[in-house]
């Protein structure tokens, strides 16, 4: 019993991180059609910021999470202003926005990843934080992983609540349903787009900060998360935040159980197999009506 609980929990913990990363990416895509392939790089930046502040200034990484979130939010607003606003204005069709933002994303990926490489080198970095085991219901967990899971779920649910019940959330949802309609009733694209882009990066940064408490970090840590996030948002449906949350957990569980029943070297085959199967059978996502 304890064993299955541990297996399910490890799937859910990974899934929680996937969900946070994917929701951010999905918001950017759903609202602005920006395929931000550099999303994982900002996760990596979040992880490095947390690591740097924790190891040099001895600040508790949990306290750092909001700081990282604000820093990446501001960075996101700047990146949006400098790169994506121009694309959105100049592009004649949505497909062109997707293609060009993908290219700019690649550019940003090279830029950010190698800047970090240049400053801190390619070595793995890390610190130990709350790495003691806790027993729950006959299963053992590392305290830091439970903490990461808690924060990941809290961040995701917090964002969903924000979308559901606040004015700005309403504006975002209206914008996703009908950009022209939303503009007609007075939603200001000029402020909403940078804010949502920044919020996406803030979520990525928080995910990075959380990951740095559990795993070692390196400049190339972001890419796999970008790819996983792409898988998750296709599972959950492009533009659906709650779909991303469920998709994240689902993928985490599929990976954990799949690896247990088959073998660890099949992990990637499984993830991509799920992606391809879903895209072929239900291209609008698992939860589309």
């Amino acid at each position, binding site marked *: 019993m304890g064993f299955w609980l541990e297996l399910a929990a490890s799937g859910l913990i990974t899934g929680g991180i996937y969900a946070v990363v994917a929701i951010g990416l999905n918001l950017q895509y759903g609202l602005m059609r920006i395929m931000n392939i550099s999303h994982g790089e900002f996760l990596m930046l979040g992880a490095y910021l947390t690591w740097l502040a924790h190891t040099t200034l001895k600040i508790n990484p949990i306290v750092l999470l909001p700081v990282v979130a604000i820093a990446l939010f501001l960075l996101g607003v700047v990146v949006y202003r400098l790169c994506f606003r121009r694309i959105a204005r100049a592009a004649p069709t949505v497909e062109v926005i997707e293609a060009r933002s993908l290219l700019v994303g690649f*550019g940003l990926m090279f830029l950010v990843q190698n800047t970090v490489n240049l400053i801190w080198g390619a070595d793995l970095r890390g610190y130990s934080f709350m790495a003691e085991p806790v027993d729950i219901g006959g299963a053992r967990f590392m305290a830091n992983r439970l903490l990461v899971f808690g924060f990941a779920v809290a961040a995701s649910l917090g964002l969903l609540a924000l979308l559901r019940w606040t004015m700005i959330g309403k504006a975002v949802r209206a914008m996703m349903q009908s950009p022209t309609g939303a503009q007609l009733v007075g939603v200001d694209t000029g402020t909403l787009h940078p804010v949502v882009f920044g919020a996406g990066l803030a979520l990525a940064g928080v995910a990075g900060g959380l990951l740095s408490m559990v795993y070692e970090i390196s400049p190339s840590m972001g890419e796999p998360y970008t790819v996983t996030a*792409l898988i998750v948002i296709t599972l959950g449906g492009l533009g659906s935040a709650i779909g991303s949350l469920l998709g994240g957990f689902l993928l985490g569980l599929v990976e954990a159980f799949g690896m247990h029943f088959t073998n660890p070297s*099949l992990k990637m085959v499984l993830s991509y197999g799920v992606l391809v199967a879903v895209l072929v059978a239900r291209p609008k996502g698992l939860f589309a009506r």
Partner: protein
Amino acid sequence: MRGVPLALALTAAGGLVLATLPWLLSDFLLALALSCLMFAALAVSWSMFCGPTNYLSLATSAFFGLGAYVTAWGLESMPYGLTVLVGGLVGAAFAALIGLAVLHLRGAYFAVITFGLTELTLHSVTYIEKTYSNTAGRIISEAPENTVIYWTVLAVTLLAVATAILVRASRLGFALSGIGGDEERAQTLGVNTRRVKVIAFSLSAFFPGALGAAMAVRWTYIEPLSVFNPFIGFQTVLIAMVGGAHTLLGPIVSSVFFSLLTEFLRLRFPYAFLIVLGLLLVVLVLYLPGGLASLFVRRGRQHA
């Protein structure tokens, strides 16, 4: 079309000039020329399908890797030239297969699924090799001479350019542009869009397959991570789009530009090079969205 014989003649003439390079250049410069040719062929064949239709395929690495594995598995029992042909056919067959399954998807979905399929192929090959052959990679012991490889890659490149010229002037090319403009309208006008897309996608995948098979002998050690490297696909897309995927010359010019830039900067400043590449890419997309080719088109129009 009137320009076709001229374009083909120019391609043949260019090919003849390029074929003399092994006698003129040092080994280092020849390797550089080889890398230019490879990326030119990849970018031209990518643009053949993706340019007119506005599809964004990231599956180039899958075709390339499959071709490379044809050589790795078959070089002992087949002559080199045959592996290149078989590699191309395997690439084309694989593209037809996945085309039938996923070409109804558009935009970001298509980009994501082609990327996913590439990774799926990569990890499946890794798994098959590990389980059934007990190897992580393969050693290629008997490689042909560098000049033979160069001429083979040149031949594939010329074939790719000639095919691109012919496709652009054919009914297939018009149908592809129609699909890119408005797929439903093309369908209404009697284009069997599904068939056209599968044929063109498969045709364009022959070249990365053949190139993978031809280039595999350059590396003595082949492993899935190096030949299915998604970076090959990304770089192809970047080169084609920076050059202008709607044009024929754009991808060729930008592949030379990129290969030279990569070769000269990468070795000396590995990180700074990629930072510059990233910046360049962002700036190019923002300020020259039609690609390098749009510079010349615009100038041409002003003269007219």
